[in-house]
């Protein structure tokens, strides 16, 4: 049994995702408490040089295999399961992302490990792992105790600062042999599809006016667009708006969309599900309009308005124009 804290590194197109650093930073703190090491798990093909960017880890376990060149829910889960089986770390942190979701629950079953998902915090408490999950649309926090001597927590991106995990250095890289049959999968990666170009890059905008479910109808979009224009910014949105095809995917802020850090993030009719907040909470100034005073968006917003957006938005647009 080890006291190590493992972090599964996430990467896409050869680039380590920020969430990995966030988890590494947290893992450092936790490993200090458990008395173990921080171990980054890097699975891929031809990306061993990325290990250098995982300097916050004491060690990088690197598994190289052609079947790991691109993320594949099946081969990655098999590989991770193999690594965890061999190492039995005290705690494994996996990003609660599109990729991590496929891994965490899989290894929980495969390796019979307790799992807590949607964590925004993880602590050791009297030798037990305690994870706090953000559930029910961010309205309720749930503190869980994970039993046993090895467990998995999948952590929401943006829960911890990335800086602490961004250390250059040269951690020991230990290459791990891939398990047998890794390329015999029932899920086969075909290709990546890049977002259609031509649309505004919302990550590059200083001012974003972002719309959520509260605008009720596609027909109300022009009203908000007008505000964005008056502010000299671009229109962004939360997931339901994109799911409804009211705006292209390129405008989506949040977990499955884009992370943005504009100077002004103006949230219109967005309640602030954790997945959304994850993508915008680092904005310099956040102003939110939502009729529900309990909406989680007000937790991250600097200024809040509970008046009807259909009154405030046109009034503001008009004043900005004059």
């Amino acid at each position, binding site marked *: 049994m080890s006291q190590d804290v493992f972090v599964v590194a996430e990467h896409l197109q050869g680039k380590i995702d920020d969430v990995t650093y966030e988890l590494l930073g947290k893992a450092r703190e936790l490993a200090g408490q458990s008395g173990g090491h921080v171990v980054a798990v890097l699975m891929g093909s031809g990306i061993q040089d990325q290990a250098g960017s995982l300097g916050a880890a004491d060690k990088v376990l690197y598994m190289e295999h052609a079947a790991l060149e691109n993320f594949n829910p099946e081969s990655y889960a098999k590989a991770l399961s193999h690594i965890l089986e061999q190492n039995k770390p005290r705690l494994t942190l996996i990003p609660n992302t599109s990729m991590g979701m496929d891994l965490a629950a899989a290894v929980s079953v495969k390796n019979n490990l307790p799992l807590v998902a949607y964590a925004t915090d993880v602590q050791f408490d009297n030798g037990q792992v305690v994870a706090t999950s953000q559930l029910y649309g961010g309205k309720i926090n749930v503190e869980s105790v994970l039993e046993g001597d090895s467990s998995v927590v999948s952590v929401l991106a943006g829960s911890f600062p990335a800086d602490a995990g961004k250390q250059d250095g040269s951690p020991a890289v230990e290459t791990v042999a891939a398990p047998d049959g890794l390329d015999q999968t029932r899920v086969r990666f075909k290709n990546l599809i890049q977002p259609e170009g031509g649309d505004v890059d919302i990550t590059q905008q200083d001012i974003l006016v972002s719309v959520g479910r509260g605008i*009720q*109808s*596609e*027909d*109300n979009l022009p009203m908000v667009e007008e505000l964005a224009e008056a502010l000299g910014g671009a229109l962004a949105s939360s997931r339901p708006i994109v799911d*409804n095809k009211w705006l292209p995917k390129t405008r989506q802020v949040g977990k499955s969309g884009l992370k943005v850090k504009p100077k002004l993030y103006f949230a219109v009719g967005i309640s602030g599900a954790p997945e959304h907040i994850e993508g915008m909470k680092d904005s310099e100034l956040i102003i939110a309009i939502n009729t529900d005073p309990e909406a989680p968006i007000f937790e991250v917003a600097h200024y809040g308005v509970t008046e009807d957006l*259909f*009154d405030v938005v*046109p009034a503001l647009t008009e004043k900005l124009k004059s």
Partner: protein
Amino acid sequence: MASNKLSIDPDQIIEKEHVVQEGMDISGQWNRMFEQRVIWDYNTEMLDKVTALEGGESLGYCYQCGQCVPVCPVNLVGDYGPRKIFRRVQLGEDLFQSPLLWQCTTCMNCLRVCPKEVDMIQIMPAVRQEAVLQGYVPEELQQAFENTFDYGNPLGESPKKRAAWTKDAGVPVPIMKEKKKADVLWFVECYPSYHPRGIDASKALARVLNELGVDFGILGVEEKCTCDSQRLAGEIGLFEEFAEQNIKTMKRYKFNKILVTDPHALNALRKEYPKYGGKYEVVHYTTFLAPMLDKLNFTNKLNYKVTFHDPCYLGRHNGEFEAPRQILQALPGVELIEMFRCRENSYCCGGGGGGMWLDGFMADHVSERLSERRVREAVEVGADVLAVCCPYEVSRFEDAVKSTGNEGKLVVRDIIELVVEAMGAN
């Protein structure tokens, strides 16, 4: 009208001589005919489909006199009119999938003047029901339907908060569940329970009922939307679902009459619920209060020029034109002025028949909202207060006051708010 002939450059007219086609000499100026001739294949299938529906029969009665179109509120701001609907359907337009289907507000002004009794109040819900069953339903409307099904109100508010407004009403508002028996059951309805401006009116009415010593109670969280507008928008199943629930709930309590704030609830409870076994004496609050005005002490002089907007479902649909006016005229300092269209010929706010939940959709089909048109009329006659007594109207007209740039010139008040204002401070 510009002459169509001029749209062809005279130099472009092709002169041909001795042209013979199919044995006919068609020499002459060729492209004079600026449009191709169309040979209509009259596809009467669509009209047959509509008239085969229960309630859709009378669309086939239209004899194209054209009386309906000038009084149709939507025609004034768009290209919709019952006569035209008939004609288009007769020519094969599929009304079930046409945007025209959702534009009727069921205001009933066409039926009022129709010599053939082509009854849009029956036709539209019947066709809409079919459209809903086939999955053609505007998204906004679908949202309202889903909210109603899930929460018992189209606003999507928590059913548990239906009586939340009573907490700071300032006067007791008894709940039937505790009271069991009352002279008057006040059926509050959704907008008066949840919409901030509706709540203002509800609180005002609660105060007046207390002042008059009326023995009343509300259903509170047990009350569900009467769904009259959802019914007219085509969701008859939804209507039946909640009619059954409301009737079952009301059966548990003893009361002599039902008081409503909402003319749409009046219409449902009075005309539709009996079909499902719920027979009640139902009265709109204006009708209820008009004979009791002498019992109220009006200490505050208002000094308002008030014009009154007849709600379609109180006036045309249920024949009450006088009570609201009696109340207004009894308020000290109120000068009542009538708009160009009033009483039987009152204009429609656009909220009926599902219009309440189709504002975005309608914006694509009309040049201005009906409520905006109405607000302009109120301003035109020099009113400074637009008095209403239907909970759809307050918010619609307040929005329209803003969008027409008449803020500061005109305010929108429910009659009951004016009553309370005239009663002065407690």
